[in-house]
């Protein structure tokens, strides 16, 4: 065919693909990280501090408890007039922190021990939850973020085995694992390199006999049940632990840290959202989150397979944050 024809066809194809791309991107409505600069035209009433504020994007990590936390904060903020865009299941700490610093999200609920060990990369073992809070706060403020008050509940990484395995080998603490010739520990990928993970287990407890087996997060209980791994990395508020089938090994050296949760927000966005007014909404919810509360919510979602949005709603209604 001749060149003029070819040019015309190429033009048509180009137009077609651009048109399709434009149509495609209409679905792409994520309300990304950047907001159009604060347009508070009127003073928001104290009842509804969120009115007139720009939309806020919150993220969560990739497991049940974070989904629940995300929903709790989202619904509480919405009840106070905020527009919230919740991006669930972003990924592990390393990934979601990058999303925060790049502005892709404005904030997310973080475990403060993880903030210190993983985000700030301090290979130290803080002695108390206050110390952890202060270390985290200093680190984040230097970097351009602010944190809210921490929750009463904490959720630490832990090592669990089946009850039989623990009884057979006389295991009560993580240090006891040194007795074994070698053992496998199944954990999510990021565990391998973390001080609050395999690295710390090796350096603080001398567990050079540990063999790492990578498991996608969530599969660890199945793997324990099948005997695919001797031990597994679990979270202390996991609903499955209430079943009695597993023994959680104690962590006397506190390698896994103090892990209360606080909302980490980018500072400039926080100001646009009303600063302390915004954090007051967050703190009101956080104060309600005791260990019992979290575990029962986790259980409803993980064991009874209820929808996390429904579970969060029930909890907030029962405690007067949402009107029934």
């Amino acid at each position, binding site marked *: 065919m001749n060149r003029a024809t070819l040019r015309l066809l190429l033009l048509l194809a*180009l137009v077609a693909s651009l048109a399709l791309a434009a149509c495609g991107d209409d679905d792409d409505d994520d309300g990304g990280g950047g907001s159009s600069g604060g347009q508070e035209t009127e003073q928001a009433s104290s009842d509804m501090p969120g009115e007139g504020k720009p939309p806020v994007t919150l993220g969560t990590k990739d497991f049940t408890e974070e989904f629940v936390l995300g929903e709790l904060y989202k619904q509480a903020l919405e009840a106070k007039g905020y527009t919230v865009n919740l*991006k669930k*299941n972003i990924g592990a700490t390393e990934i979601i922190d990058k999303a925060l610093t790049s502005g892709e999200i404005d904030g997310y609920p973080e475990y403060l021990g993880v903030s210190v060990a993983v985000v700030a990369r301090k290979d130290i073992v803080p002695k108390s939850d206050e110390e952890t809070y202060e270390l985290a706060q200093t680190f984040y403020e230097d970097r351009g973020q602010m944190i809210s008050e921490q929750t009463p509940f904490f959720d630490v990484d832990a090592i669990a085995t089946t009850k039989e395995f623990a009884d057979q080998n006389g295991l009560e603490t993580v240090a006891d694992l040194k007795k074994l010739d070698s053992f496998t520990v199944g954990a999510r990928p990021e565990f391998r390199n973390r001080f609050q993970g395999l690295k710390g287990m090796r350096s603080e407890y001398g567990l050079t006999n540990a063999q790492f087996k990578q498991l996608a997060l969530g599969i660890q209980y199945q793997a324990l049940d099948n005997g695919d791994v001797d031990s597994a990395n679990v979270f202390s508020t996991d609903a499955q632990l209430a079943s009695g089938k597993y023994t959680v090994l104690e962590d006397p050296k506190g390698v896994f840290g103090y892990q209360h949760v606080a909302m980490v927000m980018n500072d400039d966005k926080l100001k646009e959202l009303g600063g302390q007014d915004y954090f007051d909404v967050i703190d009101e919810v956080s104060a*309600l989150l005791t260990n019992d509360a979290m575990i029962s919510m986790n259980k409803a979602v993980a064991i*009874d397979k209820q929808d996390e949005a429904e579970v969060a709603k029930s909890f907030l209604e029962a405690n007067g944050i949402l009107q029934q």
Partner: protein
Amino acid sequence: MTALLAQQGPVIPEFERGSDCVRENGQFCFDWFVDNFGDVFAPRLVEHIELTAIAVAIGFAISFAAALTAYAYGKLETPFAIFMAFLYTIPSLAFFQLMVPITGLTVTSAEIALVSYTLLILFRNIITGLREVPEDAREAARAMGLTQWQLLWRVELPLALPAIMAGIRIATVTIISLATVAAYIGVGGLGQPIFNAIQSGFKTQFVAAGLLAVLLALVVDGLLVLVQRGLAPWMRATRA
């Protein structure tokens, strides 16, 4: 104020209990599936179809343009093919992740990857289809006085249609499969319940999401076979 509340402890409501099947993580809890189909699965199915349709449409537009260009300027074929083959070689889990720093956790990131995966298949099929047009047909057309353009649109493309449709079919089915992995960066689709199930170990969700994706792929494949046959009735290929 908040301290007082903390002392009393929060009210923990009675959450709905799951059925026995669900609590015991049985093989397939039909009741749960029916209850939750509308919320958990149906929207994902729609998202999945959207992801696929956009990718194939855009991919086709690009491949079509590239194929026509390479058909006219033969020398371009190899560089195009090599580039497209390179894109195809990138493992899906990697491609989606690597797009995130560039275009964010958005559908755009997923689509860039998915579109890339269609290119090689469509390009190869379109250009081969055009080439395989019998020389007799071309000569007859030229003898009848058709221009180059008319030759393309009235003779070559129609005769290449079976090959092009076959390419569209293979590409579509491939993208349906790859779109399940797209959920890794949180853009939805039927992969989302699968990844959630990996999280929770909930067997019913594994099986339900998997089966739905398989069904979608088979139904779409079947429909496209019918379209393929309908468009080119003179080529009832036994192997289609």
